[in-house]
């Protein structure tokens, strides 16, 4: 009897297992894995960054409704335009990255530098999860990168998640050659400068000494000169003014200028009628609005000001506004030359 019960129990067990297997029809249910649709699209497939400065391409990936995030992006198969593999972008170069947020309120070069550190990164880099593309520019000399008018490089991007992988092909990288400062005076492709100078963006109540005519921005030439380095690692920015006869004008004549707010530099000193700042490059340091920048943070802005008694005895605010950016480290001098006549200061 007991045996029989045991046997029937066994039968029941077998049946139970059968039922359980029925219940676990899992193999008919698809795995819950990420989906990778055909709807991962880059809004641009031709990248034309400038050598010598950091270019970050943000928001260039458009991910549609059939694709799961997060995704993994990888740059693969970098090659010349004629198909020769290029190992150039596997090499890593020292670049400065931020550890803490730049606020524009730092009180010294050391404070700024303590917020940055040097890391080694390849020139062309893709952010693993977002697909944003970075082009690093702080390698000192980027002559080894083929710049326009060369056709540059071609690369593919591998997109993957647990649902699979897909290749987005034939992205073009056509860098422009270095432009150390902005506003640039160089032709972006040839690298030649038809004129050696640029102009400030605005002049306020400047009247010529001789003719009492308004001094338009076009009448002021601005020269960006990289000086022979005085010592290793010295980073300064010098600002000077010349009159139409190339005689120095003392910057102190712009008496109302807020020298602390002119550029985000420190330790300013007046030497030979020039003002010299210790600065950190690039200028501006980060693309946000600070006391020293334009409203969108892309340029630093210098405001030179003075006050004089105007035509009818009113006190007038006078000045020059100069937006600019400098990407290459070193000792730079920005020189303003009044071409026709010197403005009235008194």
């Amino acid at each position, binding site marked *: 009897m007991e045996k029989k019960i045991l046997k029937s129990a066994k039968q029941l067990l077998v049946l139970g297992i059968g039922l359980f297997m029925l219940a676990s029809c899992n193999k008919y*249910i698809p795995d819950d894995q990420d989906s990778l649709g055909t709807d991962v699209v880059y809004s641009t497939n031709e990248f034309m960054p400038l050598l010598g400065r950091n270019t970050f391409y*943000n*928001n260039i990936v458009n991910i549609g*409704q059939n694709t799961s*995030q997060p995704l993994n992006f990888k740059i693969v198969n970098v090659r010349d335009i004629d198909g020769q593999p290029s190992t150039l972008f596997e090499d890593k170069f020292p670049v400065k990255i931020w550890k803490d*947020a730049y606020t524009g309120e730092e009180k010294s070069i050391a404070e700024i530098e303590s*917020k940055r550190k040097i890391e080694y990164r390849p020139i062309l880099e893709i952010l693993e999860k977002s697909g944003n593309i*970075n082009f690093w520019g702080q390698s000192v000399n980027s002559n080894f990168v083929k710049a326009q008018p060369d056709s540059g490089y071609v690369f593919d991007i591998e997109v993957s998640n647990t649902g699979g992988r897909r290749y987005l092909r034939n992205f073009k990288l056509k860098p422009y050659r270095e432009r150390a400062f902005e506003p640039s005076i160089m032709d972006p492709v040839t690298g030649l400068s038809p004129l050696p100078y640029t102009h400030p963006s605005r002049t306020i109540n400047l009247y010529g000494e001789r003719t009492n005519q308004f001094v338009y921005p076009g009448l002021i030439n601005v020269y960006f000169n990289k000086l022979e380095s005085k010592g290793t690692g010295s980073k300064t920015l010098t600002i000077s003014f010349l009159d139409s006869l190339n005689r120095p004008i003392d910057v102190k004549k712009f008496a109302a200028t807020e020298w602390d707010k002119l550029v985000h530099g420190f330790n300013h000193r007046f030497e030979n009628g020039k003002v010299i700042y210790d600065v950190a490059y690039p200028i501006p*340091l980060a693309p946000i609005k600070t006391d020293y920048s334009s409203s969108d943070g892309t340029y630093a802005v210098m405001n030179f000001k003075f006050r004089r008694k105007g035509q009818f005895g009113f006190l007038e605010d006078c000045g020059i506004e100069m937006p600019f950016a400098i990407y290459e480290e070193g000792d730079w001098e920005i020189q303003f030359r009044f071409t026709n006549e010197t403005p009235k200061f008194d």
Partner: protein
Amino acid sequence: MMDGLISLKIMKQFSIILTFICALFVGEAWAQTMVKGVVKGNDNRALGGVSIRLENPKRDLGKTGEDGRFVISVPNSGVMVFSYQGYRSEKYTIVAGKKEYNVTLESTAQELEETVVVGYQQRKRETLTGSVVTISGKEIQDIPSGNFVDLLQGKVAGLNIQNNTGSPGMRGTMAVRGMSSFNVSGSGDNTFVTPTSPLFVIDGVPIDDNSGYEYGFETAGPGVSPISMIPPEDIEDITVMKDAQATAMYGSRGAYGVIQVRTKRGNSKVPIVNYQGQFFLSAVPQLRRVIGGKGERMVRLEQILMNDTTLAAALRRINDSPILADSLNPYYNNSTDWQSYFYRNTMNQTHNIGISGGERTFNYKANMNYYDENGIIANTGFKRYTMTSNMQYEPSDRFRMMTNINVNVAQNKMGSGNALMQTGVGKSVNTTSLYPSPSLFSGSMGALSALGVDDQNKTGNYLGQLELQYVPIKDVRASVTLNYNYTTSTKDRYTPEVLLGNSSEVYSYYSNKSKVYNRNQLSYVKPIKEKHLFSVYGFTEMEITASSEDLSKIRGTANDQFQTGISYNTRNTLGGLLNSLNNFRSVAYAGSFSYNYDSKYILDLTYRVDGSSLTGGATPWTKNPSAGLRWNFKKEKFMENVGWWDTGFLRGSVGRTISPAGSLSDIYGWYKIDDGRYNNRPTTSLDLEIAPNTGLVPQSTTQWSAAAELGFFNSSLYITYETYYKQSDKILDKKPIANHNAFRNVLTNEKAMVNKGHELSIQYRPKLANSDWELNANATFAINRDYVTSLPDGARQLVQADGSGYDLPQFFRLGRNAFTFVLYDYKGVYKADDQVPVNPLTGLRYRAGGQMSEGKFFRAGDPIFTDLNGDYVLDENDLVYVGNSQAAITGGLYLYSRYKNWSVRTQLSYTLDRDILNTALTDRFRNYSDPSGQNYGTGAPGAYVPLDAYNVWRQLGDNADYPNVSDFTRLSLYNPYRYNSTMFMEDGSYVKINSVTVGYNFDRRWARRFGVSSARINLTANNVYTFSNYSGPDPELVTGVGRDGSNGYPSRRTYSLGVSVQF
């Protein structure tokens, strides 16, 4: 159509007269000797409702009362047969002179001897291969309800009912074995899942509760379903069929399960008049907390002073805002409790009179019900007047005729809302307490409309049904069922001009729906050598449904006294037929074969062919087979000697059922009146919204299931375990097509999903030695998981954007549960500025997406949202797919205990493993973005939620659960209280005490002194208490996609006093 109505009315009157005539006749005949006695089960339990018959000549003698006692008149000789469901019939010979008979009936294995109707065919429960659960009407009759479906919560394993609206007369959502569709309609807070409620079969006639009555918000009309018109008092029992075998023969629309309702029938020689009345108090449940009066003003002032850009700006802002600065002005010096104007406790009543009587050859029943419930939101309510009757004439074993005539009228008021949502009230309640109470002077029009709109809805449902059965030759039974059902509804809403921009509105709506249903059935049962039983039956089924809706909206009547169609404002006046015009036909042929070997092995095979006008011409017919097996292993030799184990069954089934979806116009297209003109007359053109698709097929459900039923200890413990795999294929959905096509969308049957799960129900009914005591418990447990298995165009994933400001898209992925939230991953609050991550490339802090601005950079007190793609910008690429808005585990516990005349009945239900979004709380926090109350746009500034209840960030270093709400100048920039964040995703599990009933049966002898044969009173509390960790008021009050919006209708708590008297 009028003719039909009139004839129905005549039939109704006729039936009433007939009822009275019968009552007169039956009362006086055949009285010879009065005998009395008591009928008990072998467990010493008094049995009520035991039918007592005379064996020869066959006629009914009466029934026992609820305490098991009977007093009947019998002839001086003969044999009395006592029979009762679940007990073996007993015969007692009448002994002349003996006046008292004490009868004991022996319990058979419980449940199994009962018969149920499955697939329109009566079957012994013991022989069923499908999954069928029956609930007695008694279990739900002590609780007043506008819709009996609400009362089934927790009673059937695998029937998930969420009473997510308290709107009187409306029902919540329900699904058998998980949802069968993952389509949604609407957007934002008003996103609703396409309902896949089971098919209701009322007295043998199917009623589809999904189309037209889903929720009042979709239909323009009252939204009262015929299901709401069935009085719970008139229900004999409710049978829920869950698997493919049980639902196979219902074919069309049986894909979502079937709920069969049987109304009471007459079964007593002495006519029984039954009165049940209940008086109940609907109490307002816990509402949302707000700060009032001075407290709110101080919070607002402090918020501005602490957070504005400068002190000067703060002072200016305060002085510009009269609700803050002009606090001594009586107009602003308020502490208005807005909720008190809308929510109220109401006294309600329901009365039911049933008259029934007759015996086998002729019996009848007439039931009248009146139900009146005023909603706990002012200006809402539901009234029901029903008159249902049936009679049966069976002169011989070979012929039977049954008729049903029902006339039901319902009246409901929805205020300014619709059947499900009370948007007007929701908005008004969310108003600052500093504003004066609603009045024309204060101009709070939303509130006044909610209170002052005259909204009257009437729904009438008229039904006539005839069923004939005839046995031409032995073992062959032919039957014909014919049913006509007509529903009409009207809505009349008048909005006075002062509430609607000086232009009054007359809104009137009329709809009608008619249905003709016919079923012709032939069955043949052949026993061979006692042990083999063959049964074959087949039927044809036909249905014609037609419906249309008219709507007219007239703006600008002469004055508020003219509430009819006299208007001058033709520009805003609309009217005409709605494009829901419907004409549906379906025809089906079904056959069933069943073989039963000695009740040990049972095989069921069915096949059904369905054709409907909603199936495209390309494949007009769908073929739905099913098969079921049942093995009674207790009858095998090896189990014979196991005494404590009484019953053991294993059964399994597989089958397919369908449900037509869509409309005729989806298949063949739709012409519309075009704006373009020809000869200065409007033209007709093809509607380019949806491309016709003749390839459309009905949604189909294929289900595999297996079950074990085990009974122990004289069946005092009965365990049913079931498991299933349910595949819903060919789900209809609209998909956009490329814009070079003329049409914008096309409907396809490309979606599919799978539900699988386990169900367990345990019934414990011990046989107690002491007959004073009775105990009965039933526990159910169901676990269900759903998976998306197919999406249009073979995609693995689909995100359907939400066009509203809530930004809560629908997300579907193969292999994943169908309703997943798409949210920002919230990880707490930044304690200090330097905790915010810095982008190493740019040196900028992590910020909110969009145009860069200073306020968007995160700082101390701001929420930590995970930056999924690491670009230091919080945008839609950082959304995660989390949670499941559908309950995985549902069930309940039913307890009944009786001591002598006292009884206690308790129903508990639970829903576990469910995620819900507390959108209402989000709304309340978002009100903090406008402390001065100047930027609210239209409407009024919002109410303030008391912050002390929430751990909100207030100062540097706080370790908070909720981010800073006060930094109002920045709130709109970085949007910390966004609707789509996991901050507000909460566990929606709950355990609810649905109802507690204490009943007392008056002593029969005592009652008799008042000329009453039995009397009972009960005290019932319904929706008693919900145990939950949820921070909102009620975790059940969420929409089908799991959102607790501000505009829902809270579920009332009722306390009722019920009286039941039988004459």
